[in-house]
C-alpha cells in the first residue's frame, strides 16, 4: 500500500488458510423448533453470551413462561417479541475451528415470504425444519420450493422433535419418503435428511444415542463438512465492472495514466495474460495485471474484489462486463425469468414497468408476458393468471430498454439474478431469476 498507510497487507500472506465461511438459512416456524435449534447451535458452540442468556431468562420470567424461551434471542424487534413470530431475517454468527457460520434466520409465515427470499438468496445451504409429529406441511413444501427457486445449493431436511415420537425410525423414514416424492418435482442439488431433537440436542452437535438406527452425521458435523467451494462458478469468466479507478494525480507520473477496473468477480478464474472481451463493445484485449489494493495477485475468482488493469485503452465504464471471447453471457434485451413479486401496494400485470438492477447495471423494463403463476404451496401452475400480488411467484418475459449481460440463474446466481425497483417510490418490489436470456 501507499506510504500514507499505517496498515498494509503483507504480500507473502494475503490469504489466511484454514477457516472458511458458510452462510446457511433456516426455514420453519417457531412451532417447528427453529429458534430452539438455533439457540442450541449457538449455545453449544459457546456463541451465546451470559448477559444475553440472562436477559432472555429475565424476560421469560417476566412473561410468566416456565422455560427459557430461546426464541427471544433471535426475535430482535419489539413487534416480533410482542407477537411471538419472526417477521424479518435475523443474522446470527458462530464459529467452530473449521468454519465461520452466518445463519440467516428467516421467517416461516407466508406473509413474510419476501424476507425469507432475502435470506435464501446468499445461502450456501438451507435447513428446512419439519415437526416429526406433523410430517410435511404446506409450509415445509413452500420452504423447500423457495429454497430451490433461489438455488440454494444444499438442503437439509431436519426432522425435529424426534423425542416426541419416541425416536422411532419409521416416523423419520416415512417423512423422508414423502419429502423425496415431493422433491422429485424440484431441482434440488444436494439433499440430506437428519433426525434431531433441538430441545434435547439429539444429532444437533453430537450423534444421538437415542437413535442408534441413524448412521448419518449430526447437523453440525454436516454443516462443517459439506463441500461448498465448488458451488461457485469457476468456469465462466464474468467480471461486472463496478467502478473505474482513475487517480487523476497529475504530479505523479506513474499514477497519471492509471486506469483500473474494479469489481467483484462473479464467475471463472482470471489471470494476467488472459485474453478478455469487453461487453458491450466486443473489443478484445489482455489482462495486464490484477491488483488487490495495489498488491499484485496471481489470479482472481469469485467472490474476490479486485482491480483489473488491461493492455489496451478501451472505453470501459460501470455496468459493462468483462468475459472471455469464447465464453460470453448473453447481451439480452428480452429475458425469461422466474419472478417473485414483493410489493404490497401494487400488483404485477402484463405491461407493468419498473427499474431493473442487474450486477452493476440499471435499466428499465416492461413485462411483456406473464406465462403462469405458480402456487408456492402446491407447485400448481395457473396459466390463466393475469397478475402477481405480494409474495406470489410466476414465470414472466421482460423487455429491457438496454441489454444486460446475463446468464441463466441455474448457472450463475450473480449474473442470473436481478432486483426490481419501483420508479416512483424507489421501493424494491421484486426479484427475478433468469431462465433464458436472448
Amino acid at each position, binding site marked *: 500500500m501507499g506510504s500514507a498507510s499505517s*496498515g498494509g497487507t503483507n504480500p507473502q500472506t494475503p490469504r489466511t488458510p484454514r477457516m*472458511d465461511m458458510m452462510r446457511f438459512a433456516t426455514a420453519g416456524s417457531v412451532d417447528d423448533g427453529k429458534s430452539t435449534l438455533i439457540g442450541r447451535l449457538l449455545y453449544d458452540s459457546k456463541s451465546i453470551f451470559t*448477559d444475553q442468556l440472562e436477559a432472555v431468562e429475565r424476560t421469560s420470567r417476566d412473561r410468566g413462561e416456565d422455560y427459557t424461551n430461546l426464541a427471544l434471542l433471535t426475535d430482535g424487534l419489539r413487534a416480533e417479541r410482542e407477537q411471538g413470530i419472526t417477521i424479518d431475517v435475523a*443474522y446470527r454468527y458462530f464459529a467452530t475451528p473449521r468454519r465461520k457460520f452466518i445463519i440467516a434466520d428467516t421467517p416461516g409465515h407466508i406473509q413474510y415470504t419476501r424476507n425469507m427470499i432475502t435470506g435464501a438468496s*446468499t445461502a450456501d445451504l438451507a435447513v428446512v425444519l419439519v415437526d416429526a409429529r406433523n410430517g410435511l406441511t404446506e409450509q415445509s413444501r413452500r420452504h423447500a420450493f423457495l429454497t430451490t427457486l433461489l438455488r440454494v445449493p444444499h438442503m437439509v431436511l431436519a426432522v425435529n422433535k424426534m423425542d416426541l415420537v419416541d425416536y422411532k425410525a419409521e416416523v423419520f423414514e416415512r417423512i423422508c419418503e414423502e419429502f423425496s416424492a415431493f422433491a422429485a418435482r424440484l431441482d434440488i442439488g444436494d439433499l440430506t435428511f437428519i433426525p434431531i431433537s433441538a430441545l434435547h440436542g439429539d444429532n444437533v452437535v453430537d450423534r444421538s444415542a437415542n437413535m442408534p438406527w441413524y448412521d448419518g452425521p449430526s447437523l453440525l458435523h454436516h454443516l462443517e463438512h459439506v463441500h461448498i467451494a465448488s458451488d461457485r462458478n469457476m468456469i465462466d469468466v464474468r467480471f461486472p465492472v463496478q467502478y473505474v479507478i482513475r487517480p487523476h494525480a497529475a504530479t505523479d507520473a506513474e499514477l497519471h495514466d492509471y486506469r483500473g477496473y474494479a469489481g467483484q468477480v462473479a464467475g471463472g478464474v482470471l489471470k494476467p495474460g488472459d485474453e478478455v472481451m469487453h461487453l458491450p463493445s466486443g473489443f478484445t484485449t489482455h489482462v495486464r495485471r490484477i491488483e488487490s489494493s495495489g498488491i499484485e495477485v496471481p489470479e482472481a475468482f469469485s467472490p474476490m474484489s479486485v482491480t483489473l488493469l488491461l493492455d489496451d485503452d478501451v472505453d470501459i465504464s460501470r455496468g459493462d462486463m468483462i468475459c472471455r471471447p469464447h465464453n460470453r453471457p448473453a447481451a439480452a434485451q428480452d429475458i425469461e425469468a422466474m419472478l417473485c413479486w414483493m410489493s404490497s401496494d401494487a400488483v404485477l400485470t402484463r405491461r407493468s414497468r419498473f427499474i431493473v438492477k442487474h450486477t452493476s447495471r440499471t435499466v428499465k423494463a416492461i413485462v411483456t408476458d406473464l406465462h403462469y403463476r405458480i402456487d408456492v404451496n402446491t407447485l400448481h401452475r395457473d396459466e390463466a393468471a393475469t397478475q402477481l400480488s405480494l409474495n406470489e411467484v410466476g414465470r414472466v418475459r421482460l423487455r429491457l430498454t438496454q441489454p444486460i449481460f446475463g446468464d441463466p440463474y441455474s448457472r450463475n446466481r450473480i449474473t442470473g439474478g436481478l432486483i426490481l425497483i419501483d420508479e416512483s417510490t424507489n421501493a424494491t418490489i421484486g426479484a427475478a431469476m433468469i431462465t433464458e436470456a436472448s
Partner: protein
Amino acid sequence: MRPDYHLSQLDVLEAEAIHIMREVGAEFERPVLLFSGGKDSIVMLALAEKAFWPARIPFPVMHVDTGHNFPEVIEFRDRRVAELSIRLIVASVQESIDAGRVAEETGRHASRNRLQTVTLLDAIEEHRFDALFGGARRDEEKARAKERVFSFRDEFGQWDPKNQRPELWNVYNTRLRRGEHIRVFPLSNWTELDVWAYIEREKLDIPSIYYAHDRQVFERDGLLLADNPHVPRAEDEPLFTATVRYRTVGDMTGTGAVSSAARTVAEVIVEVAATRITERGQTRGDDRVSEAAMEDRKREGYF
C-alpha cells in the same frame, strides 16, 4: 478444484465490504464515512483505502463529537485523517447544546449518547449527505441483527424496521428521494473476533486505550468508569488504580473498562475468544435502559 482456490473468512468479508464501498462510491453523490477512532471505524477506513487504491478515498469522514471522548482517541482520529489526506467533518454535540437544539441531561446518569442523534441528523441535513457508512455489526445487538446492509432512512432520519427493503444477493437498491438517505454497514457480517483478527492481519494501528494500561477508575453500576471531568463521583465511589483496557470506545461517561493484561493484539484476541459476555453488555451503560433500547434509538436515527 485446486486447493489454493480457498478463501478464508476474512478474505470473503473483506471482498464483501470492498464491494459495498465501491457500490456507494459509484451510486451516491454525497457519501460520508462515520469515523470515531474506534476499532470498527478504523477497519472500515482501512477497507475504504483498499477499495479505491491508488486513488484517494472519494468521500470525507465525519465524527459526531460528544465532547466527552477519550483524548487518546481524538488524537488518533486526527493523526489518521492527516495520514490519509482526507477531510474530517466534526459534528459537535456541544454546539447543538449551545444552539439550543438539545438540552443537556442532568443527574447521575446524564449522558450525551442520545443527544448525538440530533447532532448527526442536523449534520446530514446541513451537508446534504445521501449515504453514511457506519461501522455497526449485526453481532453486536439484536436490533442490529435485523438490519439491512443498505438501510433506508426517511426524510426524518427514521428507520422503519417492519418495512425494510428486501435485499438479495449483492445487488443493492440505492435509489432515494431528496432528503432521504441510506446508512450503509460494510461490516454487517463481521464479528468482534473478525475485527480483531483483521486488525492483526493487516497490522492496523489502533488507539492505545485498547491495550492494557494503568488507569484511575471508579465503579458504578458494575462498570469500571474512568476518572474524568464530566462525571461527578459520589462519596461511595472511590478512585482506585486498575490495569484495564477498553473493549469498546464510546464516551468517557458511559463506557466501562475491562480488567485485562492484554498488551498486544494477539493477547486481546485470546481474551475476546474466551469471553462469555458481549462487548456492549460488558462496557456500555447506554444499552442497559431496556430490552429494546437500541431498536428505539435506531428508529429515531441513531447510528
